[in-house]
Every structure is written in structure tokens, then in C-alpha cells.
């Protein structure tokens, strides 16, 4: 199929422009500015015959609250309208295409939401004894087994709540592994294209960061890696496919080099969607893998979380996993707390269990065959979209085919006066979420595009048309793009000002000098009053 040009440049489908004059174009006051004394949404149950307890009598003065809590006072109607109107001012996968590179914004199946909300999952207390939660433990055990199959590794922990949390957990396990061998190590090596969480996690785990450059093909430079390795290296951390969307085809050699100095090989699973069921990190020589279930397993991103970052490890690292772990016990399951070599807890309880329920639903729905075709369609969609865009935008690194994502450079457009940021804002006016911009850092004016497998060819074509139109506009009149976005609920926001004069909360306006009417009835103040 080929792209269909659209009249007027506006994509016919999947595009969600905020129509001028729609209610969502109006600013929405803060919930505090909707507040009116005496209003409330909450109701409290009748205490019946319960004896009263007066705080002044039963709590010491040094503990008691001295000033009223300034929460908003709104009716349920106002509450619902307020947050519904805020929802209308937010873009999402449920509204349209969201090709943020490295973030895997695939469609989130709704059966998973229904399952996670079942009282048998949502209304479980984490301290309930194992015999009361056998269904939950079975789910964890079966999900663990599937993740081990898919990664080619031995066992998993579900405590990490996100990818970076998994990284920290994995690095602490690597630390414990070296220390147990009386061979403590100082450094962790990462490629210059790595996610920012990698070096940050390395520091938190008490290691120093050594960065190695990529070669002109956009892959790990083996000579540079070899030079960086030594017997003080604890691990090499890498994403594969890497953040340029390229498969590190020398990964077996990389593993040999790293293991050769006694280091461990860490797999950042942010890009696992590309190889799901097609290739396994364990077979490539990786010792530790974190997966981002909120990416690969289609659990919703929630505006930035919650996610789940389970960590899967090879046999020789199993003893170091955070305790407790789920184990088989006769016909059922139990928590095993007796793990003397465990690094200890990284979460107060069992991780983001509700996300694991959703991921398990996704696993069942797709099955092994479905997961493999997820990877195939993700890679096909990326290569198709790249094919449609490469005449207008340069590829950051020229290697093809790409895997599940690719990195364009807007350096040609920059020469015409439009930067990657302007391309991004131009996309907003055309109803699409922009790609990730300015990452990875090794590509000038980077636009990192990850279409995912869940988008149709019609959507990909509409997006490509919008990108091509923006390229044409950059060539004809780059200045016009500097005004974008003009259809969004707000225009381009002054980020420098936000950082310069930090306003991180609302403050009530000063008491008016003269008695006035209820401020909540007067609409929003013209200026923030903080």
C-alpha cells in the first residue's frame, strides 16, 4: 500500500486537532479556584452508637493539627467536570498516534483493565497470608515462567516498579555477585547512545560510569569497548536493538569481551518489543535483563506511570534476587523469604501487581505466536514509515533495515531555519503526538520515531503525509513553524521561565482588602497569584 495524499494537509484519521472554539480550548481553572466554602463531594458513614473521641482530649497538644487543611471545596459535579475538562486537554493513545521513540506507545487492550479491577486482584491486601492469595501467586509464577522463556534466562523478580528501578536492582545484584567472589569492581561501561537512566542507575548502585563511543554505523565500537574493559569492570549495559533502532549484530562478540574480563552483561529491555519471540537476550550472552511491561506488554503508561520493570537473571545470579520470591509448594505457591544471599527489598511490597495482571492478560491474549507477530509488525511498521520519510529527512545513521524504531535528523530543516522542536510542534497542529526529540544525544536534531505494531497503514500514511508537509513548509517558510502549535489548548510554553522562577504549587490569593463576593464565583484571576 502506498500513502494517500490528503486535501488541505490535515490528516483525515487518527488526528485530533483541538478545534478552535471547542470547550477544551478554554483554559480550565485550578480545582482550588473552583473552590467555594461549604461545598463538598464527600460523604461519611453514620458512626451509629460509636463512642465519640474528641481529638482535644485524646491527642496531646504537640501532635494536634493547629490550622485548617486547605483542600478545595467542590461538589462532585464540579469535581467531575473539572477533571473531565482536564482530560480533554490531554493527548493519549486512545485518541491517536503517539510515535514517541523508545517509549513503545502501543494500544492498550481494555480487557486488561477490566481484569486488573476485579476485586480478587484490586482488593487484595499485600500482607494477606499466601493461602488466601493463591490466584495472585499463580499469576506471578506463570508470568515469571513466560518472561524466562522469552528472555532465555532463569528467574525473575517483580518488585521493580519501572525500568530504571529494574536497572538499579540488576546493578545491585551484579555488585553482590562480584563481592561474593571477593572481586569487588568499580566501573560500569555504557555506550554513548544509552538511555539517561543507565548512567544514573550506575551511580546509585555505587559504580563509576565509563562511556564508549558508537562506531560510524551506529553500533558499539568493539575496539573502543575493548579499550574500556578491564578487571575493574563490573558490567556492560546495553539496549539491543540500541537506541538508534539498530540491532547490535556483534553482540555475541561483545558478550565474549565482557565475560572475558569477568564482567556481567546487562540488557536494558526498553526495546524488547523489536525481538519479542524472535531472539532472546539470554542466547546472546546477557546475564541480567529488565523488561518494561508498560512498553512491551501494552500496559498503559498513565501519563508517566505506573509501569513495571521486572528483572530476569541467569542461573548464577538467582540467589541475589530481592526476597521474597514466589515458589511452588505442593499443589500451590508460597513466598520464599529464606534467601540469605538476596540483595533485599527494592519495593515495600510486591511491585506494581496491578500492572502485572494487565501484562499477564496481554500474554494470554497474544500467546507465543502472537508475541512473535507483535515484533514482526512493529519492525515492518517502522521500516515502512522510514521508507515514506527518508526522502525528506536524513537518517541519523544510514544503516538499514532498522528494527522497531528509527532516528531521523532534522539537520537539513535546521539549515532552512526549522529545528527538530519546530517539526515536533508542527505535528501537534496536525493532530499527532511528536516523536521523541533530541535523543539519542549522538544524533544532531534527533527525531526518534517508534510507530509500534498496533498502528494501521492508514495511520502511518497520514503521519507520513504530515511529516512531509512540515518538511515542505520548512523549505518554503520555516518561520511559520516557529509559531506552532496554534491549535493546541495552549501555545508554545516558556520552559525557561518555569525553571527560572519556580512556581511548583498554587497559593491562595491574598485576602481582599474590602469585603467582596465569593472569589470562586468570579472566575479565574487574570494572573497567577503565587
Amino acid at each position, binding site marked *: 500500500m502506498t500513502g494517500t495524499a490528503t486535501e488541505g494537509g490535515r490528516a483525515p484519521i487518527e488526528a485530533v486537532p483541538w478545534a478552535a472554539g471547542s470547550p477544551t480550548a478554554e483554559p480550565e481553572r485550578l480545582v482550588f479556584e473552583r473552590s467555594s466554602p461549604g461545598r463538598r463531594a464527600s460523604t461519611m458513614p453514620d458512626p451509629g452508637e460509636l463512642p465519640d473521641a474528641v481529638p482535644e482530649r485524646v491527642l496531646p497538644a504537640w501532635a494536634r493539627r493547629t490550622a485548617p487543611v486547605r483542600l478545595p471545596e467542590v461538589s462532585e459535579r464540579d469535581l467531575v467536570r473539572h477533571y473531565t475538562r482536564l482530560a480533554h486537554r490531554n493527548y493519549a493513545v486512545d485518541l491517536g498516534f503517539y510515535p514517541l521513540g523508545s517509549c513503545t506507545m502501543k494500544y492498550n487492550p481494555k480487557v486488561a483493565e477490566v481484569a486488573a479491577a476485579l476485586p480478587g486482584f484490586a482488593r487484595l491486601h499485600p500482607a494477606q497470608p499466601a493461602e488466601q492469595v493463591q490466584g495472585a501467586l499463580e499469576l506471578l509464577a506463570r508470568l515469571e515462567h513466560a518472561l524466562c522463556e522469552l528472555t532465555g534466562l532463569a528467574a525473575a523478580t517483580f518488585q521493580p516498579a519501572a525500568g530504571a528501578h529494574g536497572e538499579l536492582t540488576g546493578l545491585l545484584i551484579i555488585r553482590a555477585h562480584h563481592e561474593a567472589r571477593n572481586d569487588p569492581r568499580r566501573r560500569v561501561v555504557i555506550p554513548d547512545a544509552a538511555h539517561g537512566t543507565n548512567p544514573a542507575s550506575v*551511580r546509585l548502585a555505587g559504580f563509576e560510569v565509563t562511556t564508549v563511543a558508537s562506531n560510524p554505523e551506529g553500533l558499539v565500537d568493539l575496539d573502543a569497548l575493548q579499550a574500556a574493559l578491564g578487571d575493574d569492570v563490573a558490567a556492560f549495559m546495553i539496549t539491543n536493538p540500541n537506541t538508534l533502532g539498530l540491532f547490535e549484530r556483534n553482540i555475541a562478540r561483545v558478550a565474549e569481551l565482557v565475560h572475558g574480563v569477568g564482567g556481567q552483561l546487562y540488557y536494558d529491555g526498553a526495546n524488547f518489543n523489536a525481538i519479542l519471540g524472535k*531472539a532472546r537476550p539470554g542466547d546472546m550472552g546477557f546475564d541480567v535483563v529488565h523488561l518494561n511491561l508498560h512498553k512491551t506488554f501494552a500496559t498503559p503508561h498513565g501519563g508517566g506511570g505506573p509501569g513495571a520493570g521486572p528483572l530476569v537473571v541467569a542461573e548464577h545470579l538467582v540467589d541475589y534476587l530481592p526476597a521474597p520470591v514466589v515458589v511452588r509448594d505442593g499443589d500451590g505457591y508460597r513466598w520464599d523469604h529464606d534467601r540469605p544471599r538476596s540483595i533485599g527489598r527494592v519495593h515495600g511490597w510486591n511491585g506494581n501487581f496491578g500492572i502485572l495482571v494487565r501484562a499477564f492478560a496481554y500474554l494470554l491474549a497474544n500467546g507465543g505466536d502472537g508475541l512473535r507477530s507483535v515484533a514482526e*509488525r512493529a519492525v515492518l511498521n517502522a*521500516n515502512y514509515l522510514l521508507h515514506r520519510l527518508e526522502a525528506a529527512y536524513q537518517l541519523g545513521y544510514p544503516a538499514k533495515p532498522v528494527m522497531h524504531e528509527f532516528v531521523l535528523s532534522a539537520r537539513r530543516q535546521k539549515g532552512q531555519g526549522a529545528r527538530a522542536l519546530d517539526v515536533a510542534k508542527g505535528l501537534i497542529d496536525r493532530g499527532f503526538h511528536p516523536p521523541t526529540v533530541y535523543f539519542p544525544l549522538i544524533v544532531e536534531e534527533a527525531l526518534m520515531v517508534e510507530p509500534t505494531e498496533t498502528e494501521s497503514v492508514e495511520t502511518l500514511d497520514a503521519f507520513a503525509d504530515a511529516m512531509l508537509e512540515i518538511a515542505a513548509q520548512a523549505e518554503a517558510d520555516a518561520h511559520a513553524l516557529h509559531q506552532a502549535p496554534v491549535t493546541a489548548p495552549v501555545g508554545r510554553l516558556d520552559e525557561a521561565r518555569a525553571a527560572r522562577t519556580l512556581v511548583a504549587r498554587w497559593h491562595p490569593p491574598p485576602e481582599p482588602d474590602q469585603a467582596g463576593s465569593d472569589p470562586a464565583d468570579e472566575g479565574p484571576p487574570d494572573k497567577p497569584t503565587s
Partner: protein
Amino acid sequence: MLASLGLDDVDELFRPIPAELRAPAGLDLPRPHAEQEVATELARLAGRNRHLDELTCFLGAGVYDHYVPAAVWYLAGRGEFATSYTPYQPEMSQGVLQALFEYQTLISELTGLEVSNASLYDGASAVAEAATMAVTATRRSELLVSGAVAPRVRELLDTYSQGLDIKLLEVGALDGHTDLEEARGKAGDQTAGLLLAQPNFLGVVEDVGAAARVAHDVGAKLLVSFDPLSAGLLEPPGRLGADIVVGEGQALGNHPNFGGPAFGFLACGSQDVRRLPGRLVGETVDSAGRRGYVLTLQAREQHIRREKATSNICTNQTLNAIAAAVYLSWLGPSGLEELGRLCLRLARYAAERLAAVPGVSLAFPGQPFVKELVVRLPADPAEVCRRLVGHGLLGGLPLAGLAPGLADGLLVAVTERRTKADVDRLAEAMATVLAELGAEAAGRGGRGGEGVAR
């Protein structure tokens, strides 16, 4: 699509993966399932769990069975919030950004500190982030940790400290509260901070103001892990001198979820804002001068600062924080106060009823508490709880192995979902179970005695 790429088979796109690295055939994975089959299987698994609609819950210890109003997930669960990403493109993410700005304001109000971040993973990891802040702010390495902080939280701190230059020193609990004299004795010029929980793991209300003086006298920070729903009764720790206030946000509109997802919160004073971990939303204006919101002070964060970042956190618990904003707006100031008062009444009634059961006593009589308390039992608390399940009750958390000197202790929590009748039922069932256990022990003792006599 394949044809436009000049390909016959999608597998040609996987040629960068060497053949020997292709996944083997026959991985042990489920077959594909129809949606209906997925729903049925998940319902079957859920059905094998005994949840809090089946069992009346007096279990707390950090996760509480508070009521979640209908509007909370009706709103927070909307696709516009739930299926969006971190608001990197603020012009099309004003909904999430504004909701988080409101959340930050609400947390600031509850904690009594100026700046809240946009959420962390959970209450336990929030404590570790606060510890890191205290260490970097003071350039000191010792953290005094109250023994009355939940064991799970102390375990997590211990894990995180393996990679950080932090030495943890425990301060004992005395009559249920942190021994501040011991803390004073251990505090010195290497003390970065003093950590305690309010109310603490044993349900006791701590003297935060006195603890702040102990910390500040040696130039250390006071870190408090705070139950946010206690704010209707208790003075926010920030107003009593706490420098960093963190906590578990589950009680604010989030279901227990078997421990997650909920969220952790963290608030600090303006002077520490550049050491804050994670996302922070700030107010600004757009090109037309209209108010708007953006992620701000990103130079603290991993995607900009990499190894020099204040934390490695990227994905957080935004949706749960939005749920908290909806919940607190639903509650309102009078709701928060009434809820606190109701819990206080139930907790005090529970203390009175349980202490009247033969053999049962309060572990810390005279100590203030608001929704959770420890009772001592004349029989193994774990066995008592097992039997209480037969009466449809989750009796609480047995403290053996979790708190020194409290092997006979049971931690009992109430929320506004419990009623006077529930408390009566717990006390009556407890009396029945203890009588059964007493009779069995006497029976065993009696037979054994006869054996000896013969």
C-alpha cells in the same frame, strides 16, 4: 507494505540478527486466547483469592482499606490520562500537567512543606530518595533510623545503602515510640538525618517537634514518613520542623492492589528543591501569555544530567498521583477531618473492646494513636489470625519477627470502612478463638500432666 519495501517476507527485516541468535522454536508459551477466554481465565485466578469484600479487614501496616469513591477511578481511569505518556510535549499534555500541579499543591498542604515532586514508586522507595537528599544536602553519611519505622522500609533502605555512601544506625523504640534520648546520644557531626514515621509502624503518634530539635541541634535533617490521611488530626510534620516528608500514598484513593500500584510522595522546603528526585511540574505562560504547566528543573533529572542526576527515576506513578488529587478534592477539608475523627473513634473503641477480651492487653497504654494499635495476645497471634479467617475476619498483622519484644503482638488497623459492629465482631471472635486455643492448650497440658503422673 512489504511490497513497497521490495520484500516478500517480513523475516527479511530481521536479517541483522545473526541466525545463531534467533530464538529456538517451541518456547513454552501460552497459545493465543480470545478476549473472552482471557477474561474467563483472569476471573478464575481472581476467584482463587480471598479479597477484602469477603474478609473484614483489620490489616494495615502501610496499606489500608480506605473507601475509594466512585468518582476517583471514573476520572483517573479515563483514557486521556491512562494512555498518555510522561508530558514531554506540554502543549498537548496540559491535562496531566495541571492535575499534577494540583497534586503537588495538595501534598504540600498535607505535609506542610513548600515543594512536592510528581510522585515516586512507593512509600518505601521514597524514604530511600529522602535519605539520598539528606546525605547530599549535609555532605554527611550517617542516617539515624528509628526502630519504629516499618521493617519493610528499613529493609529497602538497607538494600539501597549497598550502593550509596550511607551508614544506617538504628535508634530503638521505647514504649512504642522512638527513643529520642538514644537518638540524641547517637547524633553527631556525621549525622545526615534522623528518620521516623508518623504515626509509626506500631501506630503510635511520635513527637515530631522534639525529634526535629534532636536532628537540628547537630545540623542534620529530620525525615518523616507520614500517613497522609492522618493530616485531618495531626499537625503536618513540615510545620513541626521536618525537612523532608515522604510517605505511602495508597490511602489516597488507591485500591490496595496487593501492594501496588499506589505511589510514594516526597515534599521538601524550597532550599532543597534542586536536590529533589523525579518529575516536578511548574507553572509558566505560553506565547500568548496564557497560564500553562510544564515539567521543570529537568537539569536535576537523568535524561539531562545522566550520572550526575539527583535520582535515576524516570517512569513514576503519575496516574496514582492523579487519583490522589481527585480523591483529596472529593474529600475536602471537612471530609479529611471527619474521616480522621471517625478512624480515631473506631480505633479507640477497638482498643477498649479488645483490651476487655480476657488475656488481651494494649501494648502501649497511654500512648496516643489515631487508626492503628498493637495488642498483646495470650496465644500465638499468627494462629489467632488463621482462626479469625474462619469468622470472616483479617485480624491484623502478627508482629513476631517484625518488632523486638512483641512476639505476642498483633497490629490492628481500622479505617472508615469498619463499623462499630465490625469491631464488636472482632472482639467477640477474638474471645471465642482465644477460649478455643486456651481449652486446647489446657487439654494438651492436662493429658500431658496425667502422663507424667502415671
